[in-house]
């Protein structure tokens, strides 16, 4: 009984939580470890430290092309989905109207649908419309899957936003656009930047939709997928993967800090002036 009480009061739970975090991180840690190992196959014991695999990366033209493609797709998808996300998040947090939750649900749906089915259905429509597959079609697909994440980040930034500030601005003679630019935008800017970073990261890491919707141009995940067939190329892939991991990690940390700041800002100032 005492053991049980201790279990429920956190001692064992804490140990379990630590183990769980280890379980979450452990697999990912092996990528960087074997990317600096001299042996070509990832196995223990480690044979020695080398940066050889990293030095080879910039000398691979196909890889540089893929990185450039990923950058273009990521930036376009981030900007477009954040723009669409701003409109929708503003509408959801600011207005009440019939059909609101249905529309919201539809926009969030790509989050819970099997990605393969989303990808092949878009592929069918694009082929029927006579669109040739290219990076543009990949951007279209990425925007669809990024919008739900953008919405989540932006709604948490827009919620608790004090509407009286905007009303005050309008009362003082500012136009609707002027109010948005000089009052609303500065307050929600961190949330917007956070959404841009989140969407860029998702697009950078996204594989399935890019795999189905691209023509001949590869993004980084597609390049990695192609390289996985060759066992000898594995260390190079691990090095590239490590760089992607670090990039995603940094981008998401910055995004999270900004999102918190945005949520804090709208709520604090609301509280201060209310």
């Amino acid at each position, binding site marked *: 009984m005492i053991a*049980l009480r201790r279990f*429920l009061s956190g001692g064992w739970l804490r140990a379990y939580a630590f183990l769980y975090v280890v379980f979450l991180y452990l697999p990912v840690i092996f990528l960087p470890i074997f990317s600096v190992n001299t042996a070509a196959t990832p196995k223990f014991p480690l044979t020695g430290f080398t940066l050889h695999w990293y030095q080879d990366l910039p000398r691979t033209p196909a890889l540089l092309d893929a990185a450039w493609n990923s950058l273009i797709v990521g930036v376009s998808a981030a900007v477009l989905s954040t723009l669409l996300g701003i409109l929708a998040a503003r509408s959801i947090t600011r207005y009440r109207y019939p059909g609101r939750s249905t529309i919201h649900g539809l926009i969030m749906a790509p989050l819970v649908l099997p990605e393969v089915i989303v990808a092949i259905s878009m592929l069918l*429509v694009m082929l029927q419309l006579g669109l040739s597959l290219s990076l543009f079609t990949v951007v279209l697909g990425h925007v669809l899957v990024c919008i739900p994440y953008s919405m989540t980040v932006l709604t948490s930034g827009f919620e608790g936003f004090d509407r009286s500030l905007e009303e005050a601005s309008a009362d003082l003679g500012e136009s609707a656009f002027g109010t948005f630019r000089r009052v609303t935008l500065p307050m929600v800017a961190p949330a917007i930047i956070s959404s841009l970073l989140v969407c860029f990261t998702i697009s950078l890491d996204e594989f399935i939709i890019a795999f189905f919707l691209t023509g001949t141009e590869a993004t980084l995940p597609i390049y990695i997928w192609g390289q996985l067939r060759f066992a000898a190329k594995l260390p190079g892939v691990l090095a590239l993967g490590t760089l992607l991991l670090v990039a995603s990690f940094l981008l998401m940390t910055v995004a999270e800090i900004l999102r918190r700041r945005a949520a804090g800002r709208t709520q604090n100032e609301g509280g201060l002036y209310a």
Partner: protein
Amino acid sequence: MTAAVEGSPSLRMTRARRNALLQSEPVQGLALISPTFIYALILLVLPILVVIAHSFWTQHYLTIDRTFTLENYRVALTEPIYRDLLWRSLYISLTVSLLTVLLAYPIAYFISFHGGRHKSLWLFLITIPFWTSYLLRVMSWKVILGYNGVLNSGLMGLGVIDEPSTALLYNSSAVIITLTHAWAAFAILPIFVSLEKVDRTLVEAATDLGDGPLRSFLRVTLPLSAPGIISASLIVMIPTVGDYVTPKLVGGKDGVMIANAIQAQFGKASNWPLGAALSVTTMLVVTLMAGATVLIIRALQRLAR
């Protein structure tokens, strides 16, 4: 003069009403959300309708015959290969959602009830690996479970086994392990949110009235967190049924899932209508399974109270 400037009273009324309508909440709200909504209609709803339409057509080499037929569904449901793949996909996704929820619940409980000041730090720690590329996480499991992989070479180094085990990679257990790891964060968040909503005074009341910690957990906390358990199961179950990367990388022959068959119909086999019918069948079956899961959890919740 005044009348001429302001127009007839009735005209003024309609104009005022029109202005009021244009400035009313519903119209402004709908106008604002319409670009995003239309985008989702064109790139999500329309494509799914097109897939449903295709599933009733027939492929003739390069052209598609648009006469209505249920032949694709007959093939999808009765051909042993597709039936087996569908069953295996359902079994894998059900196992994965059960495992993720079971493993995630104690963590969500710990963060919500004992997280203290570090709640948001814990949540951040747990969600970060999830933001790294899914492809890379699957790849790292391949590195771990492979014949020459981390686990085999580690176990051999420790003297536990004499030669590498082939039982680790290229089967459905490898797929289950990888997916359980990949979806962990998705299960923790909804459970955490629902645990945060549990009124702590109710738990105290149960304890005051003589319930032990286990009883008060089973009769108060657990049933009240059922909505979180439901959304966690669904959020894991529905996407994993259609997973393509994991079976392809770590599944081998025994771990092939329905998404691989769907992809083949749109690629090599080039039979779009059959691929469409397989997609629609998968969606319908997983919806049924999700519905059943919701009903079962709700029934258990009622029993517990």
